[in-house]
């Protein structure tokens, strides 16, 4: 076939056969195509993110003045509960796995779809149902327990819609479990010929580790919330000492889930960053096996450190010491990842496109988040900073500085594949930088606030804390811009962006071999893996200008 005809042919097939071609509501709501399900998740979590971020915006405004003049204490408490619950369970946990994971896992494995496509759609419906319950609980008055639902406040004292909110989280948990199962089976069963375990992409490894945690940890959350609701509704004494229960038991159970959940919220981000670093330095990730296994090590060790949330809860000194030690250990695999990413850059051929800027930002912010995690693992220091803004700053560096940066980086990286079009690159780069700066201005002052002693969840505060709160609020407004901009230009690019072509980044991997956007069945003919992952050719030592 002459080349010209080939191009026309390709265009033709792109126009008629992409997964986005059919655009009826029915075709979306009944789809079993993993790519469409991924997009359904994307639209849903954007809604939750917007609601949760608005709550944070009001909180930050309220904290501009020491007396908390904007909202009343009760409203404030409902706002931070809403922020936490929605961000954790309805944005962060599903963000990378359910959006990018859904879209990419089969593509990266060279498969047609996930192992259980209908189950996948069901997971989304369950998620929406759970989210609906949570939003309903917010609309009829909200919940004021904090996302941690500590007893006996939640089970006996709070006058808000605790049980309903718990039900929403409980339901959404099943969506996590089903997605995890689906990913595990898919990775085991649907790898393309030649795609052995050690040729898998690192993103796949991290999704696998995440799925193991989702499947093992989420049931514990379900049980814990059920017990709490039983105590609340029928006064079954489990946690409230007035009913013969033990309030610490709740914390043990809750953190047995929620610490691993922290890794649900960061491991997929690490996977994305491995992909970005490799693609934009045109090199295989340094120490592939160590990076891959560190994901599994984190997943397993992550189950053994929950007690570091309870150093001042009257847990025994012995338990405190053990949990402190294990918490230091779990930092090692994360450190290994950071060092390997940096080493990957060595002798690479690096281009600083938007996704790469996000990846570099991730490394910086995640490193600070991880380092301050060591402060919290150190017993005597944690006694002082526990339940202060130091903790808030620490986990936002991991969750927002880490996971959200990775999510944005991944979204930009695979956007050409998802939509078939390029976003405006310059605007993208500026946004990445604005996000990084805004983020640091928002959260760095909170470390200082925390060490100075400002407790978390305070609607009003003594005057000496004002200066850092003002800085933080200023930063938040810049950070907000960093989220609004991509929303605008990514939507814009769907219509006006220039067509992307199959592989705009020149990256390695099955997903870049198929068309953008891919056809419903992903590949024209099933791909075969014949080489290692990231087998980039040796880059030229001479400068390359585009």
């Amino acid at each position, binding site marked *: 076939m002459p080349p010209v005809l080939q191009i026309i042919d390709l265009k033709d097939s792109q126009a008629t056969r992409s997964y986005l071609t059919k655009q009826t509501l029915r075709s979306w709501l009944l789809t079993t195509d993993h790519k469409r399900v991924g997009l359904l998740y994307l639209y849903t979590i954007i809604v939750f993110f917007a609601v949760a971020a608005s709550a944070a915006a009001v909180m930050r405004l309220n904290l501009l003045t020491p007396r908390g003049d904007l909202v009343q*204490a009760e409203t404030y*408490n409902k706002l931070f509960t809403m922020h936490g619950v929605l961000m954790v369970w309805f944005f962060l946990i599903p963000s990378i796995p359910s959006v990018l994971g859904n879209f990419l896992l089969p593509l990266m494995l060279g498969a047609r779809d996930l192992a259980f496509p209908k189950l996948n759609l069901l997971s989304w419906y369950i998620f929406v149902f759970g989210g609906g319950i949570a939003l309903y609980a917010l609309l009829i008055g909200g919940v004021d327990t904090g996302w941690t639902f500590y007893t*006996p*406040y939640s089970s*006996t*004292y*709070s006058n808000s819609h605790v049980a309903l909110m718990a039900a929403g989280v409980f339901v959404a948990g099943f969506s996590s479990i089903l997605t995890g199962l689906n990913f595990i089976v898919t990775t085991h069963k649907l790898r393309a010929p030649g795609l052995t375990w050690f040729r898998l992409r690192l993103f796949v490894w991290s999704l696998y580790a995440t799925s193991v945690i989702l499947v093992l940890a989420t049931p514990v959350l379900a049980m814990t919330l059920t017990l709490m609701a039983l105590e609340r509704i029928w006064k079954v004494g489990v946690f409230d*000492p007035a009913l013969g229960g033990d309030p610490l038991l709740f914390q043990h159970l809750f953190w047995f889930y929620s610490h691993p959940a922290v890794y649900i919220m960061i491991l997929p981000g690490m996977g994305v960053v491995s992909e970005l670093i490799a693609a934009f330095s045109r090199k295989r990730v*340094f*120490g592939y*096996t*160590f990076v891959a296994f560190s994901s599994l090590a984190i997943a397993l060790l992550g189950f053994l450190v929950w007690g570091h949330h309870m150093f*001042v*809860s*009257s847990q025994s*000194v012995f338990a405190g010491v053990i949990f*402190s*030690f294990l918490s*230091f250990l779990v930092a*090692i695999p994360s450190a*290994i990842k950071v*060092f390997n990413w*940096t080493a990957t*850059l*060595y*002798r*690479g*051929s*690096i281009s600083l496109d938007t996704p790469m800027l996000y990846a*570099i930002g991730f490394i910086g912010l995640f*490193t*600070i988040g991880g*380092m301050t995690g*060591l*402060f919290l*693992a*150190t*017993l*005597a*220091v944690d*006694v*002082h900073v*526990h*339940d202060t803004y130091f903790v808030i700053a620490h986990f936002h560096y991991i969750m927002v500085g880490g996971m959200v940066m990775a999510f944005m980086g991944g979204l930009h990286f695979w956007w050409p594949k998802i939509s078939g079009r390029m976003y405006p690159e310059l605007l993208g780069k500026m946004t990445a930088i604005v996000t990084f700066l805004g983020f640091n201005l928002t959260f760095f002052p909170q470390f*200082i606030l925390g*060490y*100075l*002693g400002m*407790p978390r*969840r*305070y609607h*009003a*505060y003594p*005057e000496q*804390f004002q*200066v850092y709160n003002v800085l933080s609020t200023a930063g938040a407004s810049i950070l907000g811009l960093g989220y609004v901009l991509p929303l605008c230009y990514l939507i814009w690019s769907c219509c006006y962006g220039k067509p992307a072509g199959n592989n705009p980044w020149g990256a390695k991997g099955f997903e870049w071999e198929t068309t953008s956007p891919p056809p419903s069945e992903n590949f024209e003919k099933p791909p075969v893996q014949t080489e290692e992952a990231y087998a980039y050719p*040796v*880059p030229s030592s001479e*400068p390359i*200008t585009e």
Partner: protein
Amino acid sequence: MSWALLIAQIQFLPDQASKMAGRVDLLFIYLIAITGTVTLAVAGVTLFFLAKYRRNAAADRSPPASSSLPVEITWSVIPLVIFIALFGFGAKIYFRESVDPRDALEVHVIGKQWMWKLEHLQGKREINELHVPLDQTVKLVMTSQDVIHSFFLPSFRIKEDVLPGRYTTQWFTPQKVGTFPIFCAQYCGTNHALMIGQVVVLDAADFAAWLRTGRETASVAQRGEQLFHSLGCSGCHSPQAAVRAPLLEGLYGSRVPLTDGRIVNADMRYIRDCILLPKTEIVSGFDPVMPSFQDRVSEDELFALITYIKSIGSPQPEVTVPDR
């Protein structure tokens, strides 16, 4: 508030009102130094590589090894060694914070939504304010009337949760005269942020003078003794009683054999449970006839009863106000 005032607030460490605060700060500064160095090193190397190997620059790009066991071991073991040192340092201070201090001035703390009620053994009571003498170790014995709170003294770098249904303790030795904040650190409902107060450290003479102010009050142990009679405890727990019940003299701190074969320490937890849940631990050789006082005594009455039982127990009564 004007900008100048705001900027005048800039500080990085809270007041250091005890030696313990100094120890924690030192560890904190070590942590900053170590993690700061590593973070800057990672950032430096990253930026250097980004600049040197950017695509439009000439550089040696002949492929390096794609993996190296010795390198991986090096950058796992070095952090491990540093981590163990930090862990040890942190644990050492934590042990020190966790021991039961000797010769401490005991103060009872009751948290409730949303205030702190404090009580000195000598009988004086305070709300959201705690007066203590300089250089005297103060031991706080704390419990909550409702939900979980946390008694946080940032200037002394200590906090401990305050739970319903059990006693928790922490201690500090004020080494600076002045007022220092008390915060509730564990979210406890609507007015959590208003559950704050202050520690007032006075020198010994001022403290003694402060104790003498206000109405003359019975000591906590004396109030306990009155309750012991008015609640009818003495009807059973006395040599003349018709019911066979153990005498409580010398009980506190002893080891008590139970009917189920266990031997338990007669500490505050035990005595509290004996009064509220008498059926759970029955003293060996006695019948389980003691009624529960669950709904009849409040938290501060419990403190009084226990203090009384303690006072008739130990060889040297722990009377507490240091006379100096």
